[in-house]
């Protein structure tokens, strides 16, 4: 019997040590808090929207919908973090740049065009190129010039929104085509938000990439020991560079969603502080911000948890300008609990109880 017990404890301890433990506990706590506060939180309703089409609504749908951009960014941020041991703080600003470029192509320089001036797919491809160019710029500074990621990306962080405004002569063009709004809203007749499909597509793509290429192995090897990696034939400089380019692509997809939600852009507000949430998503997933090993799914889960938290706080009538302070408190708790020191302590406490249980059983 004692064997059985220690086996159970061992499993429990294994789970405490698991990377998904903290995100999982966070979800449980958030769910319980909401359940106690207002069980209606979990209600998903199929209703009609303004345009008369059936759509799903409810807090859970909101989380999936608004968590999409963050989840997509978390993918790129995880790779950048793992490979370079640093973070890209310019993603909010580069979303503005890519979004602005997209608008410029769609509206052709007019503020209020009657029709779109280029197909949406062309505009999106341009945004992708612009996003990747920004990534290349950051990646070049980090990988080839060996500048610390946060310093390197500080440049676009500072200048990005001005560049975005300059692309459209500081005008705020509005996209006339209702189809463009589908990406950040609903496709008529489809009750699930389009963003959910976009995020799912991105997650599937990265899952396939990680399965069918060595991106994961190379990125981790470079992040853990660049010098060893080089002697094993990997090009650490290129892998770091590549991670920033991939993040650039994620930025372009996020920009599509962000711009589509409004069909226009506000240079100083669009995707504001989203870089911090993206970095947090990576950290919440239990990934070391100093690089090396990573768990992509934990980061993506982390992104949705942050959105879960935000939505929860709105439900508690926290004003949007006070949101950050509340979030900070929760974040501190989560980060402290995911710190190795604290986890070690917890597992030591668990161990202290384990022998006692064994003795009793004996």
């Amino acid at each position: 019997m004692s064997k059985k017990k220690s086996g159970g404890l061992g499993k429990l301890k294994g789970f405490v040590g698991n990377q998904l433990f903290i995100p999982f506990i966070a979800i449980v706590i958030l769910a319980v808090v909401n359940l106690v506060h207002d069980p209606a939180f979990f209600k998903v309703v199929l209703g009609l929207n303004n345009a008369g089409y059936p759509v799903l609504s409810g807090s859970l749908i909101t989380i999936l919908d608004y968590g999409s951009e963050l989840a997509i960014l978390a993918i790129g941020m995880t790779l950048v973090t793992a490979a370079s041991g640093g973070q890209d703080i310019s993603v909010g600003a580069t979303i503005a740049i890519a979004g602005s470029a997209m608008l410029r192509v769609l509206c052709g320089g007019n503020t209020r065009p009657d029709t779109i001036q280029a197909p949406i797919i062309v505009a999106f491809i341009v945004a992708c190129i612009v996003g990747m160019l920004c990534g290349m710029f950051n990646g070049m500074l980090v990988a080839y010039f060996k500048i610390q990621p946060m310093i390197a990306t500080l440049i676009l962080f500072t200048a990005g929104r001005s560049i975005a405004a300059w692309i459209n002569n500081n005008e705020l063009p509005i996209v006339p085509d209702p189809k463009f709004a589908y990406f950040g809203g609903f496709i008529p007749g489809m009750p699930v938000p389009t963003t959910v499909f976009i995020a799912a597509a991105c997650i599937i793509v990265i899952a396939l990439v990680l399965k069918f290429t060595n991106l994961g192995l190379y990125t981790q090897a470079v992040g853990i020991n660049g010098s060893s990696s080089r002697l094993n034939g990997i090009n650490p400089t290129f892998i770091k560079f590549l991670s920033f380019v991939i993040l650039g692509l994620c930025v372009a997809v996020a920009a599509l969603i962000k711009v589509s939600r409004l069909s226009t852009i506000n240079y100083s507000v669009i995707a504001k502080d989203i870089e911090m949430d993206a970095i947090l998503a990576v950290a919440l997933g239990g990934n070391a911000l100093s690089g090396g090993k990573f768990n992509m799914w934990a980061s993506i889960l982390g992104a949705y948890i942050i959105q879960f938290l935000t939505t929860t706080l709105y439900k508690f009538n926290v004003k949007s300008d006070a949101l950050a302070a509340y979030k900070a408190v929760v974040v501190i708790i989560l980060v402290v609990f995911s710190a190795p020191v604290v986890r070690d302590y917890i597992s030591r406490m668990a161990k202290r109880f384990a022998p006692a249980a064994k003795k009793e059983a004996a």
Partner: protein
Amino acid sequence: MDDKRILEMRGIDKVFPGVRALQGVDFSLNEGEIHALMGENGAGKSTLIKVLTGVYVRDGGTISLKDHGEVQIHSPQDAQKLGISTVYQEITLCPNLTVAENMFIGRGAGTLTNWKKMNEDADRILSSLDIPAKATQQLASCSIAVQQMVAIARAVDMECKVLILDEPTSSLDEQEVEKLFGLMRDLKSRGVGIIFVTHFLDQVYEVCDKITVLRDGQLVGEYEIKDLPRVQLVAKMLGKEMDDLSDIKGEQGTYHGADANEQIFEAEGLQSDAGIAPFDFHIKKGEVNGFTGLLGSGRSECVRAIFGADRVLKGSVKMKGKSIKITKPLDAMKNGIAYLPEDRKDDGIIGDLSVRDNIILALQVLTGFFKPFSKAQANAFAAEYIDKLNIKTASADTPVKSLSGGNQQKVILARWLLMHPEYLILDEPTRGIDVGTKVDIQKLVLELASEGMSVTFISSETDEMLRTCSRLVVMRDRKVVGELSGDDLTQNKIMSTIAGGEQ
């Protein structure tokens, strides 16, 4: 406890998941004694040291110190307060700070530092111990040996009564080792008890008074140095009578294929940016040769140039008579050249990755970015080599950094063998490794050669090279100064060639 006894460990137990690292180990140390702690990799030496220094909390047993009685040591700080200091194999100081800062860092009594006094104090200690360093010098500008000594000076100044030296000599050359021994004898005469962990038998017999041998986490025994001849020590460490070390070279070392005279690799006027003079080099199929010379003579730099690890400046390279170009490691790998680097920790292992990922890495990179091995395939590769090289690991999923040094080395060896190279370069594969594994590796090298693999073998221990290599390239001051083979392969001849050939 008798008067001279300063440390007494009784019945120490330590359990890790799946492994009993220590089982009822006793260890004691007297004042003014240099006590060697010996054992193979994984015998529990490091674990015992870490228990003593509070890095690990022991699961059973007692530790008593003179003047303190029985003590509980929960952290390295506790150990330090009790006068137990450790100097590790890898320098754990900060290279970007000055010598004085390194000696006093973390020991400030208040928030203000009296720089002048600190530097004066440091200089006084350094000169009293005859350490050739200045207080204001940046640590990185000192040689490794001096850095090691600074670490010792730091420990000594903290009023340490027990000084633990964990393989301090593995990166030092002979003269440096001699200096270190001088320092150790000096400390001994001052009544410090020194625990000395090393793999070099010569060194044990040169400075130590007593030997404690561990095997598989258990105490084998404690011996006076004069009562334990070398052969017996080795036998005790291995737990069996060992095959005669010098007898491993025989028929198995020679390759008899029809293409035995084929030149596998040739280099002409090869030079890299690591500061070596251009050199010529060649190796035949199934040949084992080596670069020898003092530490820093450029032997590693030569093989790094062959592998493309350093930037190649000029020279031409041929593989099997065909001209090739090697500008980066991947080029060399594509041509069937494998390189096990000198610095296992910084250039070899990818610490956080699993044993499996570490083993498959080179072959995986060679196979291509878009062709990852399936999980089953990777597991099969890992299992094959864990078995073949007898790598001691809990599982293939264990992070490689948690393995002992010798097993880490085997993992890296497995990585390159999995690639089935035609030409294998081993740079110090036996450094910091126990005798048993050393012999394993030497045997393996000869076995591989007899199967037709060409091997270049570098080692600081010349007898090891004499045992394995049929030809030695001798280096001095970053130049190739001679080549020895056949009857010239003797210790004396190597020495005289290194020295300049006059004697």
